[in-house]
């Protein structure tokens, strides 16, 4: 079977970052679950912090820098996405949103996505459901049923199966994402520059009945 590209987009800001820590745990868990299905995975990480200035410049100039383009291309080529942000002011961070703002409208259509977030306390956890999930629903991505929130205190708890702990939720969400990835063919980008739609088809389709 072809290798599946899992891309982790993380908007953590600190070094080290709890958001990155969560992102890495999720990436490893997804890789493990794909392995159980005899699927090889290649996990790649996009650290949005490294592209912060380029993202702002993209908004202003309308085009990405070379390194931002490389990060975007990674995401476009992904078979699944793990998207992780700290909670800022009741939602994902501005940096996280900037990245998804500069993607083409249908870039993530149909792509399985696991959403996850970090915050100081569990009081912020529903931001995943009222902010992250609608964002990816708008982008027509296939978001897994389980979203993963990690509060500071979660890092100090042991996890056992089915106890609702962070460890258990990571495992459940990763299993859901792996199942979604296993159900679809590996992505093949269709390049409209390599394979243009013939003009008469385009003209014809514009002349729909009136």
């Amino acid at each position: 079977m072809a290798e599946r590209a899992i891309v982790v987009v993380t908007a953590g800001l600190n070094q080290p970052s709890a958001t990155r820590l969560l992102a890495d745990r999720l990436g490893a868990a997804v890789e493990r679950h794909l392995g159980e299905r005899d699927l090889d995975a290649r996990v790649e990480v996009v650290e949005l912090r490294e592209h912060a200035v380029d993202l702002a410049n993209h908004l202003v100039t309308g085009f990405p820098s070379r390194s931002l383009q490389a990060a975007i291309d990674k995401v476009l080529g992904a078979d699944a996405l793990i998207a992780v942000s700290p909670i800022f002011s009741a939602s994902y961070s501005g940096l996280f949103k900037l990245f998804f703002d500069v993607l083409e409208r249908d870039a993530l259509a149909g792509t399985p996505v696991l959403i996850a977030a970090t915050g100081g306390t569990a009081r912020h956890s529903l931001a995943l459901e009222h902010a992250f999930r609608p964002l990816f629903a708008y982008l027509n991505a296939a978001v897994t049923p389980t979203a993963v929130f990690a509060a500071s205190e979660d890092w100090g708890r042991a996890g056992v199966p089915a106890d609702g702990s962070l460890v258990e939720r990571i495992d459940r969400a990763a299993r859901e994402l792996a199942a979604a990835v296993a159900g679809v063919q590996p992505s093949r980008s269709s390049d409209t520059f390599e394979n243009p739609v013939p003009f008469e088809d385009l003209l014809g389709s514009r002349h729909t009945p009136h």
Partner: protein
Amino acid sequence: MQFGVFSVGAVTTDPTTGRTPTDAERIQAMVAIALKAEEVGLDVFASGEHHNPPFVPSSPTTMLGYIAARTNRLVLSTATTLITTNDPVKIAEDYAMLQHLADGRVDLMLGRGNTGPVYPWFGQDIRNGIALAYENYALLHRLWREDVVDWDGKFRTPLTGFTAVPRPLDGVPPFVWHGSIRSPEIAEQAAYYGDGFFHNNIFWPKEHVERMVSLYRRRFEHYGHGSQKQAIVGLGGQVFMRKDSQAAIREFRPYFEHAPVYGGGPSLEDYMDQTPLTVGSPQEVIDRTLAFRDVVGDYQRQLFLLDHAGLPLKVVLEQLDLLGELVVPVLRREFEAARAEGVPDAPVHPRVHPAERATALDPAAA
């Protein structure tokens, strides 16, 4: 190869003085720039078309007709004519009239426009941008080639027994360029008709320009208009020159940093690295411009954007002097020397260069 200037026609405050030109001053400045372009030996002046502030050129054929009367050699063009929100019947009439008045020195570049509200102001929907460009041009193309047209499309009133007047000068329609920054559908359209393709080459890294032009060339050949190298390609470019490059950078930086299109974004140095913007000495402009050929192959038209970001008219005219004296003569010589066998010039009306009358102007009719 043709060299020229294109003007967006924005009214922009000069960030170094805080002074904003009036509409009257800006319009007269555009005219002065066009006249100067002919005086210094350039070939083309192209005007933008906009229907909202801070731009002045809403009526390009009025301005170009006036410039035509005051010039002898300059080819008058547009950058771009809005094929989406203008009635193609009116484009056919306006540009045929201009073509007669200018004795053939007219072509036009079609574009979709990027200002959302302009579409509803003219009764259209921006989501139909590509569809409008396709259907409106299909009609425009017929109006210039068929004396009597019956038409039934999706976007305008049907026509029965309609004749667009005046008929094109000597029966030769104005040459058409299709401009697009990133829509492969427009490169495909230009290729289908055997028209020219223009990339503004200002906002994008060269890889994107390369991809669009390469698609156009392949499809031009596919549709039987000639080989890939015979396709008609134009590029924009953006330069600011002083004899010494440090002086150029020092003088241009405040304009760059406050320019409506990139101010507040990347540094001048990063922008120059990532896009074709060149700020420096005439030699640096020459080197950078010659390198465009490495990206798109031999091409037919190079237009420079000079009057933007609030630069005062006096400075723009100095830029034209530098272009005419030091840059374009070298570019003409170097491009010509490097040009592959069989690469055509940009099509012009037979009256512009009588010697080239034998050249097929209209590949679709050939």
